[in-house]
């Protein structure tokens, strides 16, 4: 019998590392529908921009699987989980038995039904290395590229394609970029910055029809506009890749539902990473937090639980460090306050639009609940720790917005405790 892990990214890899800390013997079988050594998905835009190679995209060293005694099935898709037999079935009807199973299948692109979507070339999504490899082959300097979606993936695709072609238009249904991680003011700064690089934006609309014979030729937008297009990237969003879980009878809400040891409702089946939903402490709701650091921590907890250890995945909140065309931004937790709830929150904001920086902090009952930093991102982790630890900000004797904010704002005792304890946090 073995540990079986479906998936090969952050959650899967950290589960392997975590299992091997406890159990060095029992075989681990790792199955991935992609044919690659573990790689970092967030790097696919860097791959497009030639900033990394397939080699440097590797998330772990070449001998990772060997070192951790992992048998790999690459390029194999799991099509069924047979819970009562504790088996998984692959596409080629291979059956693999598991003792403990981890579903770390991540996300899949969300492509809404669009008229004229099928049967045409040059329509892509942008999530996997394969997507990037294909895009890189297809895209030509003189192509008119349209990206649907001005979220993290859409804009990263735009950045990655920027050097490869001259004409990029981003179409977004909302009225600003990155609406999930930025507020309006921050979004405006970022959009302005990206526009200065020559990327065009069309807001408040989306595609109603894709036209063309064998290839994409033009797009009709919902507002009636028609724009030429030689290559379309659909980056509207992602959804948890829950298909096999759902058919196996595992509890799925938005994502797979797990307890704090990452176990699903079915014994010996665990889930971790973007495929799950977790409690977002910033908004106090259960939601899918498709974030790399989150996936790693969940995988770690899942691996530990599978190997019989005690670990708990307690809290999570959205956090992102990202940058576009050299403009870095870090956000965490709550970034926007609903007008109806404005009274409960205090917002501290400093910014300079010309200089393209912002610092925004959202506070509720003297606790930091979220922040947006654009450009001035240094030492952001101290703010993240304020959210995580729920520290009463009245204890701090320096403004959050101060450029000299740091551990000096903490009491001497608290600081000493943090700094002297050998990095135990």
């Amino acid at each position, binding site marked *: 019998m073995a540990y079986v892990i479906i998936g090969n990214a952050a959650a899967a890899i*950290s589960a392997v590392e975590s299992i091997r800390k406890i159990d060095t013997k029992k075989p681990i079988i790792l199955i991935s529908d992609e044919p690659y050594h573990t790689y970092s998905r967030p790097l696919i835009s860097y791959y497009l921009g030639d900033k990394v190679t397939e080699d*440097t995209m590797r998330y772990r060293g070449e001998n990772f699987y060997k070192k951790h005694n992992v048998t790999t099935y690459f390029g194999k898709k799991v099509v069924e989980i047979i819970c009562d037999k504790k088996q998984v079935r692959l596409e080629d009807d291979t059956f693999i038995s598991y003792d403990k199973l981890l579903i770390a299948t991540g996300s899949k692109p969300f492509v809404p039904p669009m008229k004229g979507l099928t049967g045409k070339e040059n329509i892509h999504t942008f999530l996997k290395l394969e997507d990037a490899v294909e895009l890189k082959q297809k895209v030509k300097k003189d192509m008119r590229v349209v990206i649907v979606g001005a979220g993290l993936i859409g804009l990263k695709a735009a950045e990655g394609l920027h050097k490869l072609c001259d004409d990029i238009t981003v179409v977004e249904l909302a009225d600003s970029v990155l609406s999930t991680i930025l507020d309006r003011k921050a979004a405006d700064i970022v959009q302005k910055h990206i526009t200065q690089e020559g990327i065009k934006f069309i807001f408040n609309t989306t595609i109603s029809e894709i036209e063309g014979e064998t290839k994409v030729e033009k797009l009709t937008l919902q507002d009636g506009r028609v724009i030429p297009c030689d290559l379309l990237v659909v980056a509207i969003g992602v959804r948890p890749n829950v298909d096999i879980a759902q058919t196996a009878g595992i509890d799925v809400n938005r994502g797979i539902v797990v307890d704090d040891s990452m176990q699903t409702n079915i014994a010996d089946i665990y889930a971790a990473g973007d495929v799950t939903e977790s409690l977002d402490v910033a908004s106090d709701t259960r939601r899918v937090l498709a974030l790399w*650091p989150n996936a790693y921590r969940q995988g770690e907890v899942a691996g530990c639980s599978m190997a019989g250890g005690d670990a708990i995945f307690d809290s999570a909140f959205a956090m992102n*460090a990202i940058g576009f065309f050299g403009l870095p931004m*870090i956000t965490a937790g709550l970034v926007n306050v609903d007008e109806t709830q404005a009274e409960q929150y205090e917002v501290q904001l400093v910014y300079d639009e010309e200089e393209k920086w912002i610092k925004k902090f959202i506070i509720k009952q003297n606790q930091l609940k979220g922040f947006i930093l654009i450009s001035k991102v*240094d030492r952001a*982790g101290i703010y*993240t720790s304020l959210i995580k630890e729920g520290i009463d900000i009245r204890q701090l004797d320096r403004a959050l917005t101060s450029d000299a904010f740091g551990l000096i704002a903490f009491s001497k005792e608290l600081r000493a405790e943090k*700094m002297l304890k050998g990095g135990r*946090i």
Partner: protein
Amino acid sequence: MKRVYANETYCVGCKLCEIHCAVAHSESKDIIKAYKKEKIKPMPRIVVEDDMPISFALQCRHCEDAPCIKACITGAMQKGEQTGIVTNEENRCVGCWTCILVCPFGAIVRNEQGKKVAAKCDLCAEIEDTPACVKNCPNEALKYEEEGE
């Protein structure tokens, strides 16, 4: 493992630790050449926070359970199996700053000269027995020792 511990009671806020850290991580490792000749401006991996009379130096704590390693999207951030030292493999780092997002000490800095990479304390492991900051602290406000010594 041995770590650098700051005793803020005797930190004089001179920032010599920052300067010598920058030199130790420069190309020439020569203080005058590093500051006057090298194209890449010397960059410290230690931060002195000061608001006199309070001042203290802070660098990576080389956490047991390092959040930067877990968060790193490329796998560049690693912990030495034997040494326990958290290091960033700069040729794999893409400068996404996720480590900065999660480091509760604010001990990782951006190095944007040339290829963007996260720069951090490596305890001068490849250069010296004793980290440069400790060696050059004029008031012994930095100690390099085992926990609880």
